[in-house]
């Protein structure tokens, strides 16, 4: 009886270790897998060439990813500009001013927003944001556009970032010790002065991390952006023009990538690039969070 229990214990313990190690090695396995598939493209192009060249002609074997990287950066930065102030203010309100009732409501709201599938945001973007841009916003600036644009991608992405960023910011603000806030008030600060000088200051590394992680999240978002961004290679910096972010490129061309030589390798390189960029950003800012949490 005892022996049987020991054996079960051993087996289960081994399985636990295998599981955990597999999960932890996942990024490495994915990276290696993608690298093997992408290797042919490295034989003909250098890494810098792939990243910085704008020459994109897959049928001629030209793979310059810069326009797509730039497209990704553009929608990501726009999304950040739209979502960061809203999230920062909302997080301040929800952790410092709001009634308990509102806080109780906001948690499921955040959960649902975070849980809505990407494609739903895309549908909503097509129904609301795209016509809004082509019908109202663009004419206001004297622009003519279909609405499928970098701006539409940025707005939809911003909304997708909100639950993620807001949740992290709220967690960050909650770590400010009550005693510090009491001290600030007792020295004669108003609520807002306390927030400005003490709460935000105390949370600075956390705020930076929340922003960084949200940027990484936005950078990798695929379907929703792809549905509204127009998917045409970025030609200008005009936000009313369409763009073509990296994830959209991969998702749009997987069907034909096996029919053009090297195309599959190039697209797997794009996926590898996404993985590396996002993983590095994540590791960096998560480290920042872990470090400040300990202090």
């Amino acid at each position, binding site marked *: 009886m005892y022996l049987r229990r020991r054996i079960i214990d051993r087996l*289960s313990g081994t399985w636990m270790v295998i599981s955990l190690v597999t999960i932890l090695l996942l990024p490495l396995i994915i990276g290696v897998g993608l690298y093997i*598939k992408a290797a042919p493209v490295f034989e003909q192009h250098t890494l810098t060439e792939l990243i910085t060249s704008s020459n994109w002609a897959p049928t001629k074997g030209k793979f310059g990813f810069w326009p797509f990287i730039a497209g990704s950066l553009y929608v990501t930065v726009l999304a950040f500009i739209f979502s960061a102030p809203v999230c920062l*203010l909302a997080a301040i309100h929800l952790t410092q001013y709001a009634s308990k009732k509102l806080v109780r409501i906001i948690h499921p709201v955040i959960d649902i*927003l975070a849980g809505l599938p990407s494609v739903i945001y895309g549908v909503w973007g097509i*129904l609301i944001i795209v016509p809004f841009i082509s019908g109202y916003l663009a004419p206001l600036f004297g622009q003519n556009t279909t609405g499928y644009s970098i701006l539409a991608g940025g707005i939809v992405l911003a*909304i997708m970032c909100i639950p993620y960023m807001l949740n992290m910011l709220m967690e960050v603000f909650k770590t400010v010790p009550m005693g510090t806030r009491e001290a600030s008030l007792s020295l004669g600060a108003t609520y807002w002065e306390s927030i400005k000088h003490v709460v935000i200051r105390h949370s600075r590394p956390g705020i930076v991390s929340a922003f960084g992680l949200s940027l990484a*999240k936005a950078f990798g978002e695929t379907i929703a952006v792809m549905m509204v961004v127009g998917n045409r290679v970025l030609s200008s910096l005009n936000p009313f023009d369409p763009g073509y972010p990296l994830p959209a490129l991969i998702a749009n061309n997987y069907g034909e990538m096996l029919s053009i030589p090297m195309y599959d390798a190039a*697209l797997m390189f794009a996926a590898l690039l996404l993985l590396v960029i996002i993983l590095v950003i994540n590791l960096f800012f998560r480290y920042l969070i872990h470090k400040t949490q300990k202090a």
Partner: protein
Amino acid sequence: MKRKNIEEGIFKILSAVASYSIIAILAFILLIVFVKGFGALNLDMITKTPKGGFYYGGEGGVLNAIVGSIYIGLGSTVIAIIIGAPAALYINVHLIRFKKAQNVVRYFLDALWGIPPIVYGAFGFTLMLYLGMNASLIAGIITVSLLILPIMVRSFDEVLCTIPKGLHEASLALGSTKTEMAYKVMFKQGFSGFITAVLLSFARGIGDAAAVMFTAGYTDLIPVTFDEPAATLPLAVFFQLSSPIPEVRERAYASAAILTIMILVISLVARFVSHRYSKSNIN
């Protein structure tokens, strides 16, 4: 003094507007999806597979995609449970005395959470080619299970790590092995967290499009075996929406409404379950 108060007033209003606007945004999204979707929703949509000429506005529904999504969601959740639950238990039972190792593991898991679905999709695709498989239900299930694994482990772990340490010691002192303690004590105590993790993973599995796009394929039939391709609801929305025919686009909205309802129901159940269990537990 006056300027102070004005500044405070402005920011108080701005921040309140910001937080209410987030509720408004959710309401707006749901409203649009439902209003647009219910217009085209009928019983056929959820009870029939696409019939001839469906993609030109002909008869049929998206039952193939609904069932396909549920299959992929269920299959990937099962795999994620088999690998993820023991991993989460290991962190909280075997590593309990190694605070540093726990931190490192959690750090990597958090970072894993950030990897976008499209990367999993691309990897699943290479894996599929490598194994000589075609786009199929099983390929989709495996890819999605990789995607939801970090979610499963980390959200289960979140609850497990709140279980008081005294419980471990008591259980070990009574002579149980670590495995017995993990599954009989910890698992039971963290059951609400486990259910939440499962439902969260399941919802993610149903809703994801980028990972299954490469690996599960798309078909009008309901898959019977694992090596047949499977349609998925998010892709049904996506494909129908790119059609120039208005009737088909209408159906995309209806499909979006179905998908949204499924996700909402799962998330409501998750909330309900986690509340219920956390009340009946010690913690």
